[in-house]
């Protein structure tokens, strides 16, 4: 190498920079575990990333600056604008999209590596080639699977389970075919066929689509979390083939975190990860009691709801997915403020899977300036429910269904719920009687103490607020 050597990092210094980078990742994640330090933790992790990228760019193997600089500039612009504009309610699909891009990058890097080794007529050493094949397959699955998850959450694709006849069989065949093709390439490691490599990329893309399409919209958080772990592992595999410690450590950290998050989300829904991924939830509707027959329910208007709330001593609001969709968090927070001005105690009961991801509802309510201390976890609020005058269920459904406790045959039997049926009175704000994601009737809606307010969450909260001020 010519004069570049003077400017470039030697390998020890590069290794030290990588050590600094992944230490910052670990510190950043650890600080991310406390509300007070989480933001600083994110900055630390971002600083680690800057060090890793900067140090890599300063090495003398880097070339093709035109490509690097234009790609980084374009990526920065797109990432910056997208994250500045996205609404808080759309965060989950944003994470899905970013996750997919990471997976796509891994798959494309694997392809580049393949072409690089092939172009130099080199032998595909198995300790390099196997990680390349792994990151190609998993990266492609993650890219396409995440895009489907994005489409479902954004409402571009149907939320419901979509599948071909014999879907599991087709998926199984695709997976077997992929493994077989990878084995063929690995055995023929003196001159593996690029056509076969690209065919595998495409087969993995199909598998990613087929894998996520049959899963219902409500389960997307679990899927995104799993794909997040997948992308992490694929990145770690790329680290093996490129012999890069920053990639191995960074990718592996994400792989383990995604795995834990996936299991925690599944536990909160009282289902196994396997059941979510392969059962096609929502595909077998109308298992609930009284399917087909009209059951009597009571419907009220916003002024009735305002009176019930304004003269209560304690009110518990149960926010759900519908609140997030209607962007109603500000309107609901104003309603709660108005009630508190009248001396009503207002708290929010947060189900572990409220919103679209664990913690998503907390973020939405924090955005609406709701005091952190008023958000009460399910296990802490349930004992207080019998002493609560009015429970207001806004856009939540299955998480309040008493059948989960009472009916051992219910598809959601055993799922932890917020026990609104124990409260003195229940007001359910919902657009219609349609069932939730579990596809079953909610017994709560037919109880004598329950009144249905058929409006969208935002409009209802606004009207109730103005009715309260006129009382």
């Amino acid at each position, binding site marked *: 190498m010519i004069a570049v050597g003077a400017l470039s990092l030697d390998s020890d210094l590069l290794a030290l920079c990588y050590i600094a980078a992944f230490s910052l*990742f*670990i510190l*950043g*994640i650890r600080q*991310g*575990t406390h509300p007070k330090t989480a*933001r600083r*933790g*994110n*900055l630390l*992790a971002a600083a680690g*990333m800057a060090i890793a*990228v900067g140090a*890599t760019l300063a090495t003398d*193997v880097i*070339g*093709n600056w035109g*490509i*690097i600089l234009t*790609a*980084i500039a374009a*990526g920065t612009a797109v*990432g910056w604008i*997208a*994250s500045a504009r*996205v609404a*808080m309610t759309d*965060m989950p699909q*944003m994470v899905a999209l970013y996750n997919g*891009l*990471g997976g*796509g*990058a891994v798959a494309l890097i694997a392809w*580049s590596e393949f*072409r*690089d080794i092939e*172009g130099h007529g080199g032998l595909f050493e198995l300790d390099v080639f196997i990680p390349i094949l792994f990151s190609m397959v998993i990266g492609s699955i993650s890219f396409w699977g995440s895009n489907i998850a994005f489409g479902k959450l954004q409402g571009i694709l149907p939320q419901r389970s979509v599948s071909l006849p014999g879907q599991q069989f087709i998926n199984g065949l695709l997976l077997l075919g992929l493994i077989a093709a990878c084995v063929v390439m690995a055995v023929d490691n003196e001159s593996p066929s690029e056509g076969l490599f690209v065919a595998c990329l495409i087969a993995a893309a199909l598998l990613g689509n087929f894998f996520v399409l049959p899963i219902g919209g409500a389960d997307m958080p679990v899927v995104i979390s799993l794909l*997040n772990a997948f992308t992490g592992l694929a*990145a*770690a595999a*790329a*680290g*093996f083939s*490129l012999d890069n410690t920053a*990639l191995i450590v*960074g*990718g592996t*950290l*994400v792989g*383990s975190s*995604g795995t*834990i*998050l996936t299991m925690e989300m599944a536990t909160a829904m009282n289902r196994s990860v396997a059941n979510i991924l392969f059962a096609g939830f929502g595909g077998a509707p109308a298992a609930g009691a009284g399917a087909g027959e009209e059951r009597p329910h009571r419907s009220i208007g916003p002024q009735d709801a305002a009176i019930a709330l304004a003269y209560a001593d304690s009110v518990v609001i149960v926010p759900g997915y519908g609140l997030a969709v209607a962007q109603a968090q500000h309107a609901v927070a104003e309603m709660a403020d108005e009630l508190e001005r009248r001396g009503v105690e207002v708290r929010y009961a947060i189900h*572990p899977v409220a919103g679209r991801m*664990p*913690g*998503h509802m*907390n*973020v939405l309510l*924090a955005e609406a300036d709701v005091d952190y201390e008023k958000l009460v976890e399910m296990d802490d609020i349930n004992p207080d429910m019998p002493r609560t005058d009015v429970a207001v269920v806004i856009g939540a459904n299955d998480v309040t269904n008493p059948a989960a406790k009472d009916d051992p045959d219910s598809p959601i039997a055993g799922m932890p719920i917020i026990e609104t049926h124990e409260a003195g009175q229940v007001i359910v704000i919902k657009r219609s009687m349609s069932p939730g994601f579990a596809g079953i009737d909610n017994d709560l809606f037919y109880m004598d103490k329950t009144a249905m307010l058929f409006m969208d969450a935002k409009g209802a909260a606004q009207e109730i607020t103005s009715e309260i001020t006129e009382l």
Partner: protein
Amino acid sequence: MDLVDQLTIFVLAAFVGFEVISKVPATLHTPLMSQTNAIHGIVILGGLLVIGASDGLLTDVIGWIAIFFGTVNVVGGFLVTDRMLGMFVRKPKPGAEEQKK
């Protein structure tokens, strides 16, 4: 570095990940997922390393897209996480968002 060294790092990193991450309260799961999502954008290093060896239009295009995807993943991921976590910062009552009145 030989394969055994790499596997050592891999296994240790996996355990560190489990230990550090399993203590997060549910409230912070979404921001944490977003942050770790940004961290796997580290794959951008792979893109930077392979593009130097590119010797054809197709490889250039593949590399450009890979670096572009990786950059969006990193930049967007960290910014979006910062925005989410900014929501948890206690604001004094007359918040800055009320200027429209």
